[in-house]
């Protein structure tokens, strides 16, 4: 199994491709079907943000391992774009905030689906969101 899978995000079709790859990877790692659904749904939202706000970007899926000997594995998803960036990240992480006026719960929702969530955004340079989901 490849350690890293990159999906180029250019259109709504790529959103489906990215989340299907995420689900396959989760199932291959032995995630429960419920957790695989959470991973796929999180990827769908992150890919959607790329298409909506930045037009293009990448989703990179990676198998990760916990500290040595723990035997724990998981999935890391990194969603990266060179779009407009988020001027106020703290605000974007609050429930009910959206600049596209339609969704209002993108990032806080994604945060609830996964175990770890990290975001870095620079205005007019881009946004990188990294999430991790461990196999329970």
């Amino acid at each position: 199994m490849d350690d890293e899978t990159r999906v180029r995000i250019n259109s709504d079709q790529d959103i489906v491709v990215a989340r299907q790859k995420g689900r396959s990877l989760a199932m291959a790692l032995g995630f429960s079907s419920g957790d695989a659904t959470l991973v796929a749904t999180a990827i769908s939202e992150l890919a959607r943000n790329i298409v909506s706000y930045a037009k293009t970007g990448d989703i990179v899926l990676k198998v990760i391992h916990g500290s040595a000997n723990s035997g724990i594995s998981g999935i890391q998803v990194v969603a990266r774009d060179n779009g407009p960036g988020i001027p106020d990240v703290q605000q974007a992480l609050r429930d009910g905030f959206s600049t596209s006026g339609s969704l209002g719960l993108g990032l806080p929702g994604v945060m609830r689906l996964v175990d770890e969530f990290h975001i870095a955004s620079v205005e007019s340079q881009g946004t990188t969101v990294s999430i991790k989901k461990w196999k329970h």
Partner: protein
Amino acid sequence: MEVPILKQGDFLIATVQAALTDADLLHLRTALVQHVVRSRSRGVIVDVTSLDVMDSFASRTLRDLDHMIRLRGAETVIVGIQPEVAFAMVQLGLRLEDVATALDLEEGLAYLNQKFKSST
């Protein structure tokens, strides 16, 4: 991926058979609203049993569909939301609000028949 729409008496049944892109979802919405007008249907069932992900866009499109159909004086029922999908939707904070849902196609038909009976 086009979603087939079947007419059964006063109702329309749309069965989603594979993953849908945003464009597919919008197409389904438009096709159903037009079909309801054309066939003077009283109710619409959207079967999402094979949908493995219901994200914010899909929820919003189904909600919009429900509202549009209602403006036509007909009813919509979403059937077959899988347990895992329901779990993910709630975690994500998605709500279908006042959209009617049912366990499966059979229950959806029973719901519409009931509704239809009590309104005549």
